[in-house]
C-alpha cells in the first residue's frame, strides 16, 4: 500500500515545483512568517459534528486567538484529497478529523502526507490515553459498532446480549441484519464463535466465514449505509442488528424502542491530523491543544453522546449521559479496538473473499 497514488502528478509536481522555485524565491520564506496565519480550514464530518465543533471548539478558538476557522466536509475517507493537496501543495484544508486507517494509509509509505503533530510534551495531550493517539494524530472521537435490538420484539423472552446471540438464530429467532462488509462483521463472527477479544487479530478468516455460512440463511438484510441501518431499526423491519452506536442512538431519539448492547463493542478512533507542508501547521497545533481541553470536550455531550477521549472530561458529565458515550469506562472496557494495521494489509483479499461469498 505504499505506492504513490498518482505518479503522473508527482513528476509534474516536481517540474512545477522546480519552475516555481526559480520564479518565486518567496517560497523559501523562513518559517517565522507562518505565525501570520489568520485563517485555517478544518475538515470534519459535517452534520452534527460541524455544529458541535463550531460551538465548542471553533468559535471559542477564534475569540481566543483571532484565527478564523472554516469548517469543511468531504467524502468519508478523504485520503485521495489529502494526497492530491499535499502533492500539489494547494492546501484547500490545513487539517482534518480523519480515521486511524486513513492516517496509516497516508504515512506508511516513503512520502508522509501528514505533519508529525509533535505535541507529546504538552500536558493537555499527555492526559489523552496512548491508545487514542499516534505520531501523526491526536484522537478526538471514538466511534463504535454495537448490537442493537427492538425491545418490542423481545418482550417476555430473553434478549440478545452478545455477538453469539446475534449469530444464534435458533435460540434468538427474529429478523436480523448484518453489515454487508467484512469490516466488523468478521470480528463479530469470531467473537460469536467464542474467540476472546484479545485473540481476534489476526483474523481466522476461514473460521469467521464458517460462522457466517451458518447465520446467512437467517439473515434477512445486509445493510450498506448507516442511514439504512437506522431506518431498519426505526421501522421495525428487523428485530436485531449490528450497527454503529450513533445510528442506534438516533433511532432511540426518533422514538423507536431500541436497546443497545455495549458488551463486545468494536471501536475505532478518529483524530486531528495536519496536512504535511501546510503553512498554517502551527495554528493547527494551537487548535488541537485547544480542542483537547477536557472541560471543552465535556461540552460536546450537549450535542451528541461523543466518544470523548479525555478521561477527566467524564467528571463534568452527568452519569446518565456518560453511559451513552462509547468511551465511558464500562463501555470501552468490554470493547475490542479495531486493528487498523491488520486491515490496511488484508483489506483487499478479505473484501474480495467476502464479496465472492456474499454473491454466493
Amino acid at each position, binding site marked *: 500500500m505504499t505506492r504513490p497514488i498518482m505518479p503522473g502528478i508527482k513528476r509534474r509536481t516536481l517540474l512545477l515545483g522546480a519552475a516555481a522555485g526559480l520564479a518565486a524565491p518567496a517560497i523559501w520564506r523562513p518559517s517565522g512568517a507562518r505565525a501570520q496565519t489568520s485563517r485555517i480550514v478544518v475538515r470534519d464530518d459535517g452534520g452534527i459534528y460541524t455544529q458541535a465543533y463550531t460551538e465548542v471548539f471553533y468559535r471559542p478558538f477564534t475569540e481566543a486567538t483571532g484565527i478564523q476557522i472554516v469548517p469543511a466536509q468531504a467524502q468519508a475517507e478523504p485520503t485521495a484529497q489529502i494526497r492530491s493537496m499535499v502533492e500539489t501543495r494547494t492546501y484547500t484544508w490545513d487539517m482534518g478529523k480523519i480515521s486511524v486507517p486513513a492516517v496509516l494509509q497516508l504515512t506508511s509509505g516513503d512520502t508522509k502526507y501528514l505533519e508529525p503533530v509533535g505535541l507529546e510534551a504538552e500536558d493537555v495531550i499527555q492526559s489523552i490515553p496512548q491508545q487514542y493517539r499516534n505520531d501523526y494524530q491526536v484522537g478526538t472521537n471514538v466511534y463504535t459498532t454495537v448490537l442493537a435490538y427492538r425491545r418490542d420484539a423481545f418482550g417476555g423472552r430473553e434478549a440478545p446480549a452478545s455477538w453469539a446471540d446475534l449469530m444464534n438464530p435458533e435460540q434468538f429467532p427474529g429478523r436480523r441484519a448484518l453489515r454487508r462488509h467484512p469490516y466488523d462483521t468478521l470480528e463479530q463472527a469470531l467473537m460469536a464463535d467464542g474467540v476472546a477479544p484479545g485473540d481476534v487479530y489476526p483474523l481466522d478468516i476461514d473460521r469467521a466465514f464458517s460462522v457466517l455460512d451458518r447465520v446467512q440463511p437467517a439473515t434477512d438484510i445486509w445493510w450498506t449505509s448507516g442511514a*439504512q441501518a437506522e431506518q431498519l431499526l426505526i421501522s421495525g423491519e428487523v428485530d436485531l442488528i449490528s450497527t454503529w452506536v450513533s445510528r442506534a442512538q438516533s433511532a432511540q431519539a426518533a422514538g423507536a424502542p431500541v436497546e443497545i448492547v455495549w458488551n463486545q463493542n468494536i471501536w475505532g478512533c478518529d483524530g486531528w491530523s495536519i496536512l504535511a507542508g501546510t503553512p498554517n501547521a502551527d495554528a493547527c497545533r494551537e487548535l488541537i491543544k485547544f480542542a483537547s481541553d477536557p472541560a471543552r470536550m465535556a461540552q460536546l455531550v450537549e450535542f451528541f453522546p461523543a466518544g470523548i477521549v479525555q478521561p477527566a472530561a467524564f467528571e463534568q458529565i452527568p452519569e446518565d449521559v456518560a453511559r451513552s458515550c462509547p468511551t465511558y469506562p464500562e463501555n470501552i472496557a468490554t470493547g475490542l479496538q479495531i486493528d487498523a494495521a491488520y486491515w490496511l494489509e488484508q483489506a483487499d483479499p478479505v473484501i474480495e473473499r467476502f464479496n465472492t461469498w456474499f454473491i454466493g
Partner: protein
Amino acid sequence: MAAIPATARPPAATRRPMSRRSKQLLMAAPMVLLLVTFLVYPSAQLFLLSFQRGDGFSLENYQRLLGTPVYLTVMMLTLKISVVTTIFAVIAGYPVAYLISILPRATKGRILFWILLSFWTSFLVRAFAWIILLGRNGVVNQLLQTLGITDAPVALMYNFPAVVIGMVHALLPLAVLTMLSVMENIDRNLTRAASTLGAKPGMAFWKVYFPLSFPGVTSGALMVFVTAIGFFIFPALLGGRRETMITQIIIEQIIQTMNWGFAAAVAVLLLVVVLLVFVIYDRAVGLSTVTGEARATARRRGKGIFSQVGDAILTGLGHGSDAIIGLFPRRRQAREGAPRPLTAFVVALLAVMTLPVLLMIPLSFADSGLNWPPQGFTLRWYEQIFNSPIWMSALTRSLVVGLCTATLALLIGTPVAFLMVRGRMRGKTALLAFTLMPVVMPNMILSVGLFYLYARIGLVGTNLGLIIGHTVIAVPYVVLTVMSVLRNYDSRLDLAAQSLGATPWVTLRLVTLPIIGAGMISAFLFAFTISFDELTIALFTSGGVSATLPKQLWDEVSLSISPLLAAVSTCLFLFVTVLIVLAGLLNRRQK
C-alpha cells in the same frame, strides 16, 4: 449543413470542402475541448493507475479482475438489472410519451408536470420513499393486511423486483422525455392517411407511427441503459444478495480500501462492456437510430434481413392489435383525441410514479422518525429549514449552478447535435461514442479525477468548478435529445425559408428553433435536473465550504434519518409546482 449555412458570399467550389470541415470543427470544438480537459485528461490519469503496481507497468489488477469470478458475476448481474430496467422503462414510457404527444397544449403541460415532478425528487429521497412503501411494516404491507389480503407481511423488498421497480421509477422520466422529443415531431397526418387508405387503427399504428417513433425508442433505451448501468443507490438500498452492481464494487474499492488501481481496472471493465453493448446495438438495430443519415442508407438497402424480419413482426403486431380491438364493441365513430384505455393506463402509471413524492408530504409533519404512519404533528422541520442559512444557501447554489449548467450544456451540445444529424462527415460514430463518455464513465471516477485537476487550478469549492463538472455530465443528454428532435425535422423547411430570402440567422430563429423548441426545452430541463440532483461531484469538489442541495441532504442523512428529509422534498415539490404553474400562465399570456 443547412442549419448554419455558409455565411456571406457563396464560397468558390474548390474552397467548399475546406470551409465545411473548419465549420464542423468549430461546431464540435467547444464540446471536445470541454470533455478532453475535464473528462479525458483527469480520468486518463486515474486510468493509468490501473496498469501500475509499485513503480512499473503491470497487468496485476487485470489478472485479479479476470481471474476472480466474483467481478464477472457482478458484471453479469449489472447487465441483467440494467437490461430489465431498460425494457420496462421503455415499455411503460412509450404510452406516456405517445399520449403527451397527441394531447392539446394545456393538458400536455399538466401531464408533463407530473413527469417532471418525480424527476425532480432526489434519488436519495426516492430510494427512502420506496423503503417506506415496500418495507415489512411499510405502506403496501399495511394496506394488504388491512384489506385482509394477507395475514402476515409479505417480502416486497431486498429482491430483484424491488430494485427494478426503484430503477424504472427513477429512469422512466428519462425514457418518456427522450421518446417524447421524437414523437412531438411525427406528422399525425401520416397515420390519418394510412387510415384513409384502409388501414385499421392497429395496422396504422404499427406500420406507420411506430417505425417513425422508433428512433425515439432506441435512443430512449440507450440512454436509460447507460444510466442504469452506473447506478448504485437502488441496488444497495433495495436489493438482496444477488442484486449487486459493478459501481458498488468501484465505490467500495475507492472508499473502503482506497485501492485506486483496482477501482480503475473495474471501471475499465465497465467501459469495455458498455462499448461492447454499443457495437452489438449498432449491428442489430443499425446505426439508423443514432444518426439520421445512416437510417437513410438502411432504408435504401430495404431488403436487409433485419428490416424484413422487423417488417414481418410489425405486420403481425398490426393484425394482432386490430383483432383485439375488434373484440370490443364499436364505440362512437372516430373520437378525436386520446383513446380512453390509454389515458387510464397513463393516469395509473403517473399515480404510481408520483406516490413516493406525495408520500413525503404527510411524513414531513411527523414528530420523529421517517416511518409510516406518521406520528404526531409538527412544523419544526420546516422551521429548521427556513431558519437555517445553510439550507437556504444550498438551495440558491443548486439553482444557480443548475441554471448555468443547463445554459452552458445547451450552448455546447446543440451545435454538436446539428453536426451529428446534418453534417456529412466521417467518424460520426466515434464522435457519438466520445459524446457519450460522461454517461458511461462512473461519476465517482470523474469526480476524483476532477478533484485532482481542480486542486491544481484552484477550482475546488467554487461554483465554476461545479458548473463545469455538471456540464460535462449533462452535455451528452443535451446532444442526444436535440439530435432525436433534429432527426425528425424536415430540413427542407430551412431550404424553403432560405429560398424565400431568409438569412441563415433568420431561418434559425424563425423556422428551425420554434419547431425544435420543445426538444430544446426538454434538453434544458434534462441538464438542469441532472445538475440539480447531482451528488458525487458535489461531494468531492465542493470541498465542503459550500454545499449544494443534494450534498446538504446527504450530510443530513449521514447523520440521522428524520422527517427533515421529507420536509425538504415537500418544499421542492411546492417549488416545482409554482415554477411550472408560472410557466403555464406565461405561456397562456403570450397567446
